[in-house]
């Protein structure tokens, strides 16, 4: 009975993950500029991949420890890498979409350069 | 099914090779070289060689591309264009 409940929980988690992965890919197509696409691609994909791996771990019990470790590692590294990408591309001169308001990072850069 | 996947991967690596031939920028050439390494590591997995696949993914696609980009940064500011 417990096995059955865990298995169906895993299936539901996998479906949630696939749905969020679909939303992420839709966002990459639809959103206007690099930063918005990066946000869609990272946020939706982090939740999608984490819930998919945990669901697979619940379905196949032998892999539960591995999938939990994988999920924790993804939760740690995926937002950091996305942050680094966005910051580096802003520094390299990629212009944000013209509706972006307020642009707080530009003010911070200006303050930093004034201090020097 | 595996034949379909491996055919797609072979098409991917050949396309990556052509990108690294015809691209004007050195940086995109190097990055497509990393893509070729990643595709080859996937093919190693389909060829029943998981050891080689792990090694190729860690070294060929990761460290090799990183060392290339570091060396390119060393010779030029930004290091994105060809030597003029």
């Amino acid at each position, binding site marked *: 009975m417990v096995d059955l409940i865990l298995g169906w929980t895993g299936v539901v988690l996998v479906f949630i993950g696939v749905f969020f992965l679909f939303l992420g890919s839709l966002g990459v197509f639809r959103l206007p500029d690099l930063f918005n696409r990066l946000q869609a691609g990272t946020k939706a994909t982090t939740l999608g991949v984490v819930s998919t791996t945990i669901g697979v771990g619940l379905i196949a019990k032998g892999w539960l420890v591995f999938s939990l470790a994988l999920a924790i590692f993804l939760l740690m590294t995926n937002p950091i890498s996305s942050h680094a990408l966005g910051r580096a591309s802003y520094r390299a001169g990629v212009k944000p979409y013209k509706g972006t308001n307020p642009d707080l990072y530009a003010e911070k850069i200006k303050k930093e350069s004034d201090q020097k | 099914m595996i034949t379909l996947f491996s055919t797609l991967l072979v098409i991917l690596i050949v396309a990556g090779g052509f990108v690294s031939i015809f691209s004007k920028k050195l940086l995109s050439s190097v990055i497509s070289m990393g893509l*070729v390494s990643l595709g080859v590591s996937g093919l190693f997995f389909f060829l029943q060689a998981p050891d080689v696949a792990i090694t190729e993914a860690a070294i060929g696609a990761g460290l090799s591309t990183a060392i290339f980009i570091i060396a390119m940064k060393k*010779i030029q500011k930004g290091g994105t264009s060809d030597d003029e």
Partner: protein
Amino acid sequence: MIDFLQNWIYLTGSMALVGIGLYIVLTNTNIFRIIVGLNIIDSGTNLFIVTIAWHPKSVMPIYTATNNLVVNGHVISADPLPQSLVLTAIVIGLGTTALALAIAVKIYQKYGTLDVRKIKEEDR
């Protein structure tokens, strides 16, 4: 037809990589691009050697609880010897690439260019 394709798709891919790398080495004069071409040739030859070790019904050469390599006295795994050769060849490839890049950086600092022909003219 499927068996024909299964073996030949990998051979075709590896030889296409070797051809692409050779074309890059022959047509470019920038040292960095030549090193890129040599790296692609490296990948192609590794893929070729691993392909020789494989046949369509093979399993991976690791004993696990569900994966037995010897059935009825016949060895059904992929050949592990070429795989171990390739395993070491990849690491050596990284070492030689790093050495070549270091020498290229030194050449740039001395001559101010990476073009092979200009270096030749300055040397004369």
